[in-house]
């Protein structure tokens, strides 16, 4: 003989108020996914090596470093690099290199489809770039990030 239990009533399992979905409560917001999306973009486009180096610079170069007392990694420079990489498209099969400069800024270096160097340095207050194929080298404000993506990394 098979016995059937009656279906649970709607109120059999209910979360206490503190654990309920906060969507409808004023003043409570979901955690933004931006950080996760940025991490995924960095990993996908820079590879494990580039992604790991950024974390290395962030975690181990946060005090004056080296024989010339290099500056710690600039959070603004890191933010600019992350936004650039998220929007950029690099040639297939090419992963840029990431370097920390003595001034706490970040350099991103790769080659275009012809093998010529393209380089961007992200600073706290702006961006330097270099296009070997044309010899163009300039500095622009961080508000021109979108233009720099279009100019250098939109293949």
């Amino acid at each position, binding site marked *: 003989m098979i016995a059937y239990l009656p279906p649970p009533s709607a109120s059999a399992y209910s979360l206490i108020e503190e654990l309920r979905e906060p969507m409808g409560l004023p003043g409570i917001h979901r955690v933004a996914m931006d950080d996760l999306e940025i991490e995924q973009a960095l990993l996908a486009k820079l590879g494990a*090596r580039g992604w790991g180096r950024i974390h290395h610079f962030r975690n181990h170069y946060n005090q004056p470093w080296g*024989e010339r007392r290099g500056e710690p990694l600039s959070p603004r420079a890191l933010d600019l690099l992350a936004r650039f990489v998220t929007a950029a498209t690099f040639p297939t099969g090419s992963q840029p*290199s990431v*370097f920390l*400069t003595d001034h706490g800024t970040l350099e991103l*270096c790769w080659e275009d489809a012809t093998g010529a160097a393209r380089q961007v340095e992200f600073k706290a207050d702006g961006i330097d770039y*270099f296009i*070997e194929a044309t010899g163009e*080298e300039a500095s622009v404000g961080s508000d021109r990030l979108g233009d720099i993506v279009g100019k250098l990394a939109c293949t």
Partner: protein
Amino acid sequence: MPVGADENIVRAICSDKWDGQRLAPSLFVGAGTSVSRLALTSLDDHWDLFRQYVQKPPERMLEMLGEINVGELHAIGLAHTPSIELTVEPRPEDWNPAHAEIPQRISRGLANKILPALKRHRPPQASC
């Protein structure tokens, strides 16, 4: 008095400027690039000296020494557009009497021409 054109200099290349694939142009971009003179301190002694003083924090590893002749460096500067007269000036420091500097401001484009001219020295193998 500038270092003579017949001398060779080395630049310490640590893990923040070398990722196993490319060299960072910032090794030479800007003014006051730090170098060291092989005429005063041998290559082997430079390894010992740099290991002691540049590997800070300990996670920063000395990966290579980049060597270039002073005359060749000068010629690269003159051949670049716009041309620039690169010199190497002695700047001895307590920890390194062979320390010197390239005082001129080096552009990114010029740094990209200096990097391929470097003779790369890997760390000497430890003897058994």
